[in-house]
């Protein structure tokens, strides 16, 4: 199992995502200007400020050469995980329902939150049980999830902020969603920053561990 971690100009969490991936699988960085996904079994689109987040978060990164290949990979059923800015990019690319809006507080939030696993039936959560609580940090200004009415079936809600932990005003406390096929997931919290007890929690590793598990 080999993960590919995308690096855009403006990415800032790709090295943490790479190190987190390597705890559970082989992993390499992928440059945004390349198109080659040969030998990659799963793609991680990491956090940061891709292409400066000009115009709208994720709007320009979505058109990078590598993203064209990632979109094709996802449409063929390949697993793709978008974290924070990566989540925004996947929404802009139309691979996930909804969009991310500025936090209701208009403030940057950076804190540890509890998220609850709502759907353990995805490639990203199969090491979890429904109702598991994961302690993972958030750090973002544009993390308020919104999907137009009727566009987000309940089974596509993978993670919810625990009661009282919604840091940004997201609709229905949604913290992470997947696509209809279940092979693309995005979340605002940063599991790659929570893979070692040294930094407060190893719960984020469960997502990388899930992704590295050979499908049953």
């Amino acid at each position: 199992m080999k993960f590919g971690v995308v690096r855009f100009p403006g990415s800032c969490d790709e090295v943490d995502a790479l190190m987190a991936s390597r705890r559970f699988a082989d992993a390499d960085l992928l440059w945004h200007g390349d198109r080659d996904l040969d030998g990659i079994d799963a793609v991680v689109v990491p956090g940061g400020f891709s292409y400066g987040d000009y115009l709208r978060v994720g709007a320009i990164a979505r058109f990078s050469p590598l993203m064209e290949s990632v979109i094709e990979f996802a449409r063929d059923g390949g697993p793709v995980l978008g974290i924070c800015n990566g989540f925004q990019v996947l929404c802009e690319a139309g691979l996930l329902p909804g969009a991310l809006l500025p936090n209701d507080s208009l403030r940057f939030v950076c804190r540890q939150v509890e998220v609850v696993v709502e759907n353990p039936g995805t490639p990203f959560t199969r090491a979890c049980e429904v109702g598991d609580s994961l302690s993972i940090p958030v750090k973002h200004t544009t993390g308020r999830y919104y999907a137009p009415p009727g566009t987000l079936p309940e089974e596509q809600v993978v993670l919810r902020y625990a009661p009282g932990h919604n840091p940004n005003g997201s609709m229905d406390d949604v913290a992470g969603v997947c696509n209809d096929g279940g092979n693309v997931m995005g979340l605002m919290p940063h599991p790659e920053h929570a893979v070692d007890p040294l930094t407060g929690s190893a719960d984020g590793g469960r997502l990388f561990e899930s992704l590295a598990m050979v499908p049953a």
Partner: protein
Amino acid sequence: MRARVLIRPKEGILDPQGQAVERALPALGFDGVRNVHVGRLIELDVEDASQVPQMCERLLANPLIEDYEIIELQEVAA
């Protein structure tokens, strides 16, 4: 052609920027202000004005969360 595109948050979606501005105006003595929304203005010179709606749909706006309006199209002064 000169195109001017106005982009605003869709009605019904919480607009905290608009709310912040709405709360700030009375502090300066401007009363009776309601329904403030903050959006974005994009101006561009284009060879083919018929492409502007497609530009809005695909890049300039996110139609899930934003409405756009092409408010002006003029000949570019030579």
